[in-house]
């Protein structure tokens, strides 16, 4: 009777040790002995070989450039990255260096995940304003690049239909845009616009809240960050969302997939509201007929969203690893790496020097227009810890409106939901 039990117990112990032996601790700091201080770094780039290759180059060169610190990278897929961070924060297991999507930063700073970045002002001042994450007067994050949205069109299609080609200095007015959409529909495009409404999540506030801001509305009152009342449901917002509903009602756009720019490539839509990440492919497929147009001026000047993936240092990172993390970031913000990043990922480099050296975004680069759009029209999403609730509430309200809901009452409900969250969190200290 004792023999089998002993065998089971021994097998259990061996199994436990064997499984434990495969574990890998995630401890930042100095390992045993006199080795370099280990700095763990998490990215959202798993599955993106181009981005990983640039990171590998930066890390290898940083580790080789000195003996004090050693950066160790872990990569997560983007879709589950925020869940992994939240879980790691709950377990107090965050790495020293972590990247984050710009608008989430205030929430993570407020939740105590992040410490102020404390990089030299000369460095952060040299970056695009939208590539620097500020919360309550302090810099918590900084990024190598930013993205930008524009309207893709074919020159031949606009000319054939007698539609004026807008410029950065003279973008389309809303009336012109409506007339263009109607003209293109009557010319044979079943749905002339692809606004990307098949997408979900952060795309919605990223893509459509700049239109709202261009109309005079906003997601929240940015002066105090204490309420969305009168801003998200004010007359300007109601006017914008009424137009937004009309676009789908008139059949100018629909919410059918696929997500991306394929419908424009296949010439099934005439105008595609999409990002710089689709520009290289469009340029290859459409060639010199491709136009990268500025956003529509809804009345208060054109706007596009700003603030993409940026780097931060976790609050739990000890003083020595934090110092190493700063050293690494300073090292990584060299123009040559930013250019590598921009040309590998087709995104706008954060410094003027890196942009000038980029094959795409330099003064003669085929995608230079995106750098201009970013500098002239980009606006970051509200820097409040309540942003995740604002984002999901906005998405739901905009989708309801798209599907035919009453505009004013839908926006009133959205404001109620946002204000309720702000109130229950004491406006997150604002």
């Amino acid at each position, binding site marked *: *009777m004792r023999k*089998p*039990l002993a065998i*089971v117990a021994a097998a259990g112990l061996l*199994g*436990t*040790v064997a*499984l*434990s*032996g*495969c*574990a*890998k*601790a*995630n401890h930042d700091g100095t390992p*045993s002995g006199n080795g370099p201080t280990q700095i763990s770094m*998490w990215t959202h780039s*798993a*599955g*993106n*070989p181009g981005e990983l290759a640039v990171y590998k180059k930066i890390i290898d060169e940083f580790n080789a450039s000195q003996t004090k610190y050693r950066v160790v990278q*872990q*990569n*997560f*897929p*983007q*879709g*589950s990255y925020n*869940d*992994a961070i*939240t*879980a*790691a924060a*709950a*377990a*107090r*297991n965050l*790495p020293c260096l972590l990247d984050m999507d710009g608008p989430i930063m205030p929430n993570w700073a407020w939740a105590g995940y992040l410490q102020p970045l404390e990089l030299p002002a000369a460095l952060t001042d040299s970056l695009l304003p939208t590539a620097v994450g500020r919360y309550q007067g302090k810099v918590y994050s900084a990024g190598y690049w930013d993205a930008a949205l524009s309207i893709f069109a074919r020159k031949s299609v606009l000319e054939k239909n007698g539609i004026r080609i807008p410029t950065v200095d003279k973008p389309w007015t809303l009336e012109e845009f409506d007339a263009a959409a109607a003209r293109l529909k009557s010319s044979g495009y079943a749905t002339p616009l692809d606004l990307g409404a098949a997408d979900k999540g952060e795309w919605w506030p990223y893509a459509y809240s700049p239109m709202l801001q261009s109309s005079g509305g906003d997601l929240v009152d940015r002066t105090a960050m204490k309420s969305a009342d009168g801003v998200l449901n004010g007359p300007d917002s109601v006017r914008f969302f009424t137009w937004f509903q009309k676009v789908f009602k008139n059949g100018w756009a629909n919410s059918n*997939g*696929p*997500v*991306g*720019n*394929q419908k424009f*490539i*296949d010439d099934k839509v005439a105008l595609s509201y999409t*990002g710089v*990440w*689709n520009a290289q492919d469009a340029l290859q497929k459409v060639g010199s007929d491709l136009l990268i147009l500025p956003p529509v001026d809804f009345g208060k000047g054109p706007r596009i969203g700003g603030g993409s993936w940026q780097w931060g240092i976790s609050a739990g990172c000890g003083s020595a690893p934090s110092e190493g993390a700063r050293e690494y970031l300073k090292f990584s913000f060299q123009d040559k790496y930013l250019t590598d990043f921009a040309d590998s990922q087709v995104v706008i480099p954060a410094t003027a020097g890196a942009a000038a050296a980029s094959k795409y975004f330099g003064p003669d680069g085929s995608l230079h227009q995106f750098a201009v759009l970013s500098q002239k029209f980009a606006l970051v999403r509200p820097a409040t810890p309540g942003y995740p609730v604002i984002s999901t509430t906005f998405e739901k309200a905009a989708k309801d409106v798209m599907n035919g809901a009453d505009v004013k009452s839908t926006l009133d409900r959205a404001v109620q939901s946002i204000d309720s969250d702000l109130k229950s969190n004491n406006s997150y200290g604002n």
Partner: protein
Amino acid sequence: MAATPRVRGTRSEASEQRRRRRVWSYLVLVGLAVFFLFPLVFMFVSSLKPDGQILSDISGWRAFLPVGDVGLDNYGAVFDRVPVGRFLLNSLLVTVAIVGLGLVVNSMAGFALSRLRWRGRGLVLGVVIATLIVPFETIAVPLVYWVAHLPTLLFQDGALVYDIGWLNSYKVQIIPFVANAFSIFLFSQYFSTIPTSLDEAARIDGAGWFTIYRRIVVPLSGPAFATVAILTFLPAWNQYLWPTMVVQDEKLRPVMVGMQYFFQDNPAWGEIMAYTSMITLPVLVVFLAFQRAFVSSVAASGVKG
């Protein structure tokens, strides 16, 4: 004599009617089988096509036919993007461990609850059943905090060292899922149908409870073990949320987390279909190998995986 041909005629009419009914039922069943196979056919066929063609074929019958620009490029691209072999191995290891350990632990618990007589047995069974109504998502975050602070033994620099935290390991993917309330309930219900006179006879012959469990109850409970194994296999293979939260090292990730690697700014649909084809194959093999037991387990438990 005169009645015989009529009887024969009636019989042959009846058999003709039965034959027709059978043909119709087979036609309906084949139709249903084809209908349910559509998603799988779409997946395998799309895995052979480039993204642009998948999207342009999607609105018609071409979506289910391997026509146009077909090839194995997507499969090659999957290996470039994801360490698919490693992920498959991890999922296999975690799943086999959860199923194997689960069968031992849960059957022993079921045995203790159904065969042994002890005070509070009913209450414990009630508590075990009550935990079934708690969704895993509600306890996930506290569980992460808890496993992050559990003691552990590690091999480091050739020595066994004591450390704190189970995160980033195989055991954190296995051990929380070994004990399973539904499996315990199923075992205890099944064991209670085995006559207790067998236990009594064995006790008279000098057998202890473990011998009774191992030599009498387990050999008589094949269907219960098959049911539990199958019902445990599918959720273990499909684990996504938990490994997302507790595994940071790519070398330890299971297949389902790998799916997210393909959802970049524009999803790579051809590669997604190739990857899903690869990770579905082991499940299909298990299903085909055990389909009789699978169907009877679903019928017996009233639950599908």
